[in-house]
């Protein structure tokens, strides 16, 4: 999409973020919920199906433009936007990999956020070592019986549709399949709501499968053994999205720091007059723009489906989430004592972006992905 058009979408998403989300982000963090009418407004604007194809009823944006939109929305609330990105991943997976019948059944409602989605890969025993997951799915006539536990599931317990990665075959990635598990399935239950440092507007729970019955119709794509590949492809985009959320949060934090330092007076002048403040702001701006560049480039490579796309997404995610958490943290410091108060938003951007260095694949795993890509090609 042309830059001129991306700007228009950025303006729309920023206006939405600053008018509908930013005034409420403190409340959503404190009371730990996202109001239904916010999600409804977001869905009528198409924010639930940004990169679902036009054929699938989605907005059909390319990955770079999607990144720009998520960055803009994150200025209003990182936690809520991050959930939107996870929902978008679920909708995209059904669009990209689902059978016609599955798309017929679920895609429109996922696109409109009538159904909310959760992505279930991580288990207590398999986080970074995702492919060692032990949730099983045994075929029994026209059903699969799933057993296992998924942990740290965003919107777990509140979502309508769970995309669950489970083992249908042997060990390793090729034995994994993806299932569309509706909320009312027999044998599906949820753990307690986790108490988190950030990402508080969305609930996080374990998803527990005890002889959970899933129709054979709900094997994503109708083929066993593809689950890991689907999950990883979902993650590539997911990494761009999460990095974009970090960028939006860092952008908001930098703006807050600029405002505060031009207003706060000590030693007879605005603290923005001190060289340390100036150097800090310059470094933060540099890191912010470098993050944008690396994430958008990775998005273009992913869109072009080139072999190095996966490593680029990993590199961008690691760089941007680290850099942007640092920007939020530095902004907090520039606020002095006020930065530590919940009356000021910078601490929330800091807390919310902290987890981006961990989920979607830890930044350590990102480094493994990148280094393998480099060293294996030697």
């Amino acid at each position, binding site marked *: 999409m042309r830059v001129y058009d991306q700007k228009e979408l950025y303006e*729309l998403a920023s206006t939405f973020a600053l008018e509908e989300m930013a005034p409420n982000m403190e409340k959503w963090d404190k009371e730990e919920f996202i109001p239904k009418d916010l999600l409804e407004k977001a869905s009528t*604007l*198409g924010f639930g199906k940004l990169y679902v194809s036009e054929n699938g009823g989605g907005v059909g*944006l390319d990955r770079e433009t999607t990144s720009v939109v998520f960055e803009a929305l994150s200025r209003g609330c990182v936690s809520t936007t991050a959930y939107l990105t996870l929902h978008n991943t679920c909708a995209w997976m059904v669009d990209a990999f689902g059978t016609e019948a599955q798309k017929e059944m679920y895609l429109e409602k996922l696109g409109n956020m009538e159904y909310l989605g959760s992505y279930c890969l991580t288990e207590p025993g398999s986080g970074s070592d995702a492919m060692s997951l032990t949730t099983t799915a045994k075929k029994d006539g026209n059903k699969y019986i799933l057993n296992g536990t998924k942990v740290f599931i965003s919107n777990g317990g509140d979502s309508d549709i769970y995309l669950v990665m489970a083992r249908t075959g042997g060990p390793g990635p090729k034995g994994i399949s993806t299932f569309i598990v509706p909320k009312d399935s027999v044998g599906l239950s949820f753990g307690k709501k986790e108490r988190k440092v950030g990402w508080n507007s969305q609930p996080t729970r374990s998803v527990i499968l005890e002889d959970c019955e899933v129709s054979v119709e709900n094997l994503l794509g109708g083929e066993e053994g593809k689950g890991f590949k689907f999950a990883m492809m979902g993650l590539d985009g997911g990494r761009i999205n999460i990095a974009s959320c970090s960028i939006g949060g860092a952008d908001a934090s930098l703006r807050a720091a600029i405002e505060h330092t031009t207003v706060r007076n000590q030693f007879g002048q605005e603290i923005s007059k001190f060289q340390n403040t100036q150097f800090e702001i310059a470094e933060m701006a540099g890191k912010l723009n470098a993050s944008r560049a690396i994430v958008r480039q990775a998005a273009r490579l992913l869109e072009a489906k080139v072999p190095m796309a996966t490593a680029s997404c990993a590199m961008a995610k690691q760089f941007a989430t680290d850099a942007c958490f640092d920007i939020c943290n530095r902004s907090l410091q520039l606020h002095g004592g006020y930065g530590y108060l919940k009356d000021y938003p910078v601490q929330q951007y800091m807390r919310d972006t902290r987890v981006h260095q961990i989920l979607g694949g830890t930044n350590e795993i990102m480094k493994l992905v990148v280094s393998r890509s480099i060293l294996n090609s030697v």
Partner: protein
Amino acid sequence: MGADRGIHVEVDEKTILEPLSVAKLFSAIAKKENPNLIIMGKQAIDDDAGQTGQMLAGLLDLPQANFVSKVDIGEDKLLATCEIDGGLETVECSLPAVITTDLRLNEPRYASLPNIMKAKKKPIDKYKPSDLGVEITKRLETLKVAEPAARKSGVKVESVDELIEKLRNEAKVL
């Protein structure tokens, strides 16, 4: 929010378009399109003229309601609340009509992403003033622009008598 199609009347970048020229162009288009309702802004932010809608109604011989902050549109007539200097005026017009709008008329909705994407594919017909048979030469010349005289500072009086004396002899309002 949004439209199904657009019409673009192209003029040279350097052209200065006066309200009457714009009204004539719209009048020519209205004769092609036969709209039931023409909605214009009450005044442009560059020249603040506040004339085009009124002139257009005149050219088309249509009823008009101006500075509209509320409107109810019926089958063949509309009821408009117009913001005037003294307060609010209610005007009823038969349709077709021209209205010029005040910002209090509505709160724009967000344009949805799918609609923004669709907008790029919608048709925009282009015309030149000559295609419409309209002359747009400038007829008005600005001779002078001046600020009103600055408000002079007041004077403190010592007594009521002095106040009355000044009001009678200096300000001449008594």
